[in-house]
Each structure stands twice: as structure tokens, then as C-alpha cells.
């Protein structure tokens, strides 16, 4: 592996993809907005119906096409709009996170958080925190599609 894999480039800004569940985390993001809380624009939110909707290939595709970090946010266990969706995703994403780390990703590159619709401040804090961690790690080049080109 080239040493330049995580090399920092001047002016580089991290790209974080956040998959947010429609019922809790996305609403939490809304609340952060209406509460006038600010969080880094590095985070790009993708709305999914439930954290259980998340196909692990979404995460890998994000890494292939330019993401430096991926966050999945869903309702707290017990609060799922569909009753059990996040119980299932907790098991799935736990084993998937370990697999992704086993493949050589740093643990901070892929994270899962529970954020409810009333936790606008937590939403903003988590986005701030993950952007900070990815900034510290540097750009991700692992699993990057060779044809991908940075737009920044």
C-alpha cells in the first residue's frame, strides 16, 4: 500500500455521508436547523426510511465514490417507528462495522449513533465530532474507485 494513502492535501476538507432514519435522526437534524444550531457542512445527509433499510453496500459505495467517513444514525433502541427495525440494524451494523475494520478501515471511518427527533443538539454535536475525527485521520483512499476524482 502506498504511504500516501491517508496523506493530507492542502485545502482538503473531509466528506462525511450520514444515513439518517426518517423518523428520528432526520427529524433531529431538522430540529438542529430550526434551533439554529450549526454543524459542519462536510456532512451530507441521506434520508432512509429506517436504519434497518441500510444495505451495507450503501456504506461501501460511499467509500468507493469519495466519502472519507460514513455515519449511520437511527432511533434509539425501543423507539423504532417500525418497532424492531433498529434492533435488527444494531446486530447487522455491529458485525458489519467489525468486518469493515477487519478489511483495514480505521474504526472512526464508519460509525453508528442513535439520535432521536428531540435531540437536535446531539445531532449537531455528533456531526461536529465525526467531522473532527475524520479531519484528524486525513483523507480516505481505501476502497476508493480508481476512476473517482475529487471535486474539491
Amino acid at each position: 500500500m502506498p504511504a500516501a494513502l491517508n496523506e493530507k492535501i492542502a485545502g482538503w476538507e473531509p466528506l462525511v455521508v450520514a444515513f439518517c432514519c426518517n423518523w428520528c435522526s432526520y427529524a433531529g437534524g431538522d430540529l438542529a436547523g430550526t434551533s439554529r444550531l450549526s454543524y459542519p457542512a462536510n456532512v451530507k445527509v441521506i434520508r432512509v426510511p429506517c436504519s434497518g433499510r441500510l444495505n451495507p453496500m450503501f456504506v461501501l459505495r460511499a467509500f468507493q465514490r469519495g466519502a472519507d467517513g460514513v455515519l449511520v444514525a437511527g432511533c434509539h433502541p425501543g423507539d423504532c417507528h417500525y418497532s424492531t427495525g433498529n434492533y435488527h440494524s444494531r446486530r447487522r451494523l455491529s458485525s458489519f462495522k467489525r468486518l469493515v475494520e477487519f478489511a483495514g478501515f480505521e474504526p472512526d471511518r464508519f460509525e453508528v449513533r442513535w439520535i432521536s427527533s428531540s435531540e437536535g443538539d446531539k445531532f449537531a454535536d455528533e456531526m461536529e465530532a465525526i467531522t473532527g475525527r475524520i479531519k484528524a485521520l486525513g483523507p480516505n483512499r481505501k476502497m476508493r474507485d480508481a476512476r473517482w476524482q475529487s471535486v474539491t
Partner: protein
Amino acid sequence: MAERYLAELTKIRDAVRQDLLGGRINLLLGWEKGHYWWQSRPLFAEDEKDLERLTWDSFCAVNLSRYLLDELKDYQKIGVLVKGCDSRAFNRLLQDNMIARERVVLYGLPCPGMLDYSLLTAVAGVAPEGIDEENGRVVLKTVAGEKTVERDQLLLYKCRDCLYPDPVVYDQLLLIPRGAKEAPERYKSVTALEELPADERYAYWDKELSRCLRCYACRQACPYCSCRECFVEQDKPRWQGRAYQASENFLFHLVRAYHGAGRCIDCGECQRACPVVIPLQELNRKLIKDLNELYGQFEAGLNAELEPPLLTYKPNDPAAFSEK
């Protein structure tokens, strides 16, 4: 061929001949000798003449349960010879509702572990011309003479850490059971990899996966890869790109392994089928190890009634990420 195998083969042939000629089964899935002496390929026997080619030796590694998926389209009732791993593969397919139990007759063969031709060659120094087996030893016959080696050292990778050599499901057990084994080193290579720094681990996989030809032999051989349409061939959306590059290789291998999370029976057919010897079992075992650690001990394929860990949950499950 060793005396023991000949005696066992007679026993197997007698049992299946009765059923095949009597009409209890329309087809028997077994093994026959391939082009080389060290190959035993699947045999599809319809009548007595086909049964003459039936073989049973140290190279019958092919998992026959997987062939049921295709053969059940053409035959009403099929008999299958199953080793330990084949029987767990059968349970796997049964649990996935891919086959009907009443259309299959299972003949159980407790398995001594199968030999790896590449190891035979490596140990002998030259390509051996044949082998003889006695009391846990293998005599390699080469042009330069004979060499005796412990049988355990020549086993296929998938057989080295086998926990269940005896079939776990069968209608008729044809040979003497060998009893459960222990495999203290099953997760050894996984643990060694886990201890590496992330970048080195990535470099390791980058190197191993760079050999991948995307021939999908691992998928074809696998008893859990039974989807009628696989994600690698799906066009809308096209998950798996065709380009030859690390990114696509990682995607394929991570997703292939992940589709087996909680379902993989660790039979190692993927790795045996791989023409470029990618250590696929390490990915599979990593998932088995993690799920066992997080959600309780579970061995897929042992019992078709037990629910795999990713199809169920408990409200107080632990997580591999911060839940604060």
C-alpha cells in the same frame, strides 16, 4: 487405494444400489474419479452402470449438497452422500427453504478429512504418482521413491479445523462415527490479523484480493449463496462494477462474506474452489467469531430449527459502537 476405503466403498455402493434400483431414489449424488488420480469429481448416477464409477477416497472434498439446487428440478427424489460439512450445508439449504426434505435421502459418511494435492506436491518435492494410506500416515509415491508423512499435515485447509466430521443430519449412517473434534486454532489467523494496525491489514487484503479474477467460483461452490439472482449480476442497480481494481474486489469480497454472516457453516468450499487461493475463510471466520462474541455461541447448519443470529434480536443486545 487403501484397504479401508475399499471396504467402505463396497458398503456404500451396496446401500445405495438397493435404493437406486428399488426406485427409492431416482438419482444418486456421489463422487467419481476425475481426469487425474488426485481428483474426485461429482458423480450423477441414474443406474447400476453409473454406480460402477462411484468412488470414496481422500479426495472427495466437493460438497454435494449444493448440487441439489439444480438436480431437484429434474429428479423427483435424490440420494446424496454427505460428509459432516455436506450435511450442515444441507441444513443451510433446508433452512433457506431452497429444498424439500422429503425429496432427499441422505447417506451419512463420517469424514476422515480430505487431502490437499498442492500440499502433497509441496511435501514430496515433485508431483507424486500416487499415495497409499495406513494408520494415519500417507505414503507418497514419487519417481524418486517413497516418503511417509503424517496424514494431519496433508489435510485441506478447510479440514484442518473441522469441528464436525460426522454428519449432523442423515437418513442412514453408512460408516462408523468419528466423534466431535476440537479446533483450538480455528481463529488463529483471524486473531493475528486483528492485531495488525489498520493500514497493514488493508495492505494485506489489498495484496490477497488483487489476485481475484472475479470468476465467482467461491459463490458457485457455496451452500449459502443460493439466491436466484446474485448482487454481482444485478443490473439495476449495478452494485458490482466489472472493472479490475482493488475497489471492486473489496466490494465483492466484503459483501460476499457479509451475506454469510450468521449463515456460513465454515465448510471452506469457497477457499477450496478459489483458483488463486485467496484466504476467504478468514473473512468468514471473522464474522462467525464476532457474532459468537456479541450475540452468543451459534454454529450455522447444526440445527435447521435454530434461528441464525441476524434474523433475530434481543432488546438488550450489545453493540460494536457507542450507544450513548
